[in-house]
């Protein structure tokens, strides 16, 4: 932690703040937050917000539900910074809490109305995701067609397969970590992912012809 220097005066009573950059680790930021530096949580949130929100949006298919769950996850840290036990990777904790909150959301939704557990039925549309970078018209049309095929293919995966696919993509956790997060044997996780890959190939090849 040599690159981190205290910004607060030791005798001031104010929380000692660290100089934060991309090399500051998640545990260091959390430690700074626990010691009273609120901005450390902002840096942490900035670091993980796109991945976490992207995962939630794919999972729930609802921008408002994803916003609520996103808030819920970080407010849990605000209320109880010790909720993250530091025994695991922070990202694994983050995605575990987010997944559990999403499951609670599905349960609430399904108790209110007959909604399938894998989604609210309200699909996240193009307005919820911003494409980057901006392609030309021909490329855009081609990308759109391919995108529609991929989206349709992902929709045809089972919820279990899709969940692992999204978790691996957005969290970048290893399959072993995902197996721990889902309390499943690693073989089960890899087998589901393998079936997902086979199905994606079949759908994309069939629809490409």
């Amino acid at each position, binding site marked *: 932690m040599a690159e981190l220097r205290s910004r607060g005066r030791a005798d001031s009573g104010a929380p000692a703040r660290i100089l934060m950059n991309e090399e500051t680790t998640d545990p260091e930021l959390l430690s700074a937050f626990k010691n009273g530096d609120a901005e450390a949580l902002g840096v942490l949130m900035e670091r993980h917000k796109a991945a976490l929100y992207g995962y939630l949006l*794919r999972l729930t298919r609802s921008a408002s539900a994803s916003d609520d769950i996103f808030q819920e996850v970080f407010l849990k840290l605000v209320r109880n910074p010790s909720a993250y036990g530091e025994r695991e990777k922070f990202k694994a904790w983050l995605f575990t809490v987010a997944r559990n909150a999403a499951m609670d959301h599905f349960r609430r939704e399904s108790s209110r109305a007959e909604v399938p557990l894998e989604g609210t039925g309200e699909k996240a549309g193009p307005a919820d995701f911003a494409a980057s970078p901006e392609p030309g018209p021909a490329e855009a049309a081609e990308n759109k067609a391919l995108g529609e095929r*991929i989206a349709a293919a992902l929709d045809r995966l089972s919820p279990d397969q899709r969940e692992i696919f999204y978790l691996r993509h957005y969290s970048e956790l290893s399959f072993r970590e995902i197996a721990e997060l889902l309390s499943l044997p690693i073989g089960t996780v890899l087998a589901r992912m393998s079936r997902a890959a086979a199905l994606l190939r079949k759908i994309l090849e069939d629809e490409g012809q």
Partner: protein
Amino acid sequence: MNCGYGEKLILYAYGEAEAGLKASVEAHLAGCAACRGELAALGKAGAWLSAYRAEPSPSAVAAVLLAARAARRGFSFGWREAVLSGALAAVLAGVFSFSSRSAGADLAWNSGLDSKLDSVEYSVYQAQSEMTAASADWDYRYSALEDESLNAGDNV
């Protein structure tokens, strides 16, 4: 696919295969069109997801930051604030004890509030007395009427 490389291919595709497995999968890929197709499908789906970036609404992020600042402000109660609070509490305690001693124990007894309470209590007492008197008066008149009625019956 029944080439037996399904799960190995997944580890390879996501960069989790150790050197020996990686070499084995690469050798297998040269002769397995199905595995090449799966690898390509995973790549396309992953690239498509990566091409789109979504972020939480600014209000959701701001709400968390606001809560974090409020919570940490409460948490970062430094020793200077603690000393100042202690001093303030001591001064207030001193002022209270001094004023209590000079006013004496009958402070409340002699206050305006106490005399007003006495007045309310007296009014209630007066109302009760009047009601009791009216009730006794009514009882008396009722008995008198009964007597008159009995006497009239005797005379009949």
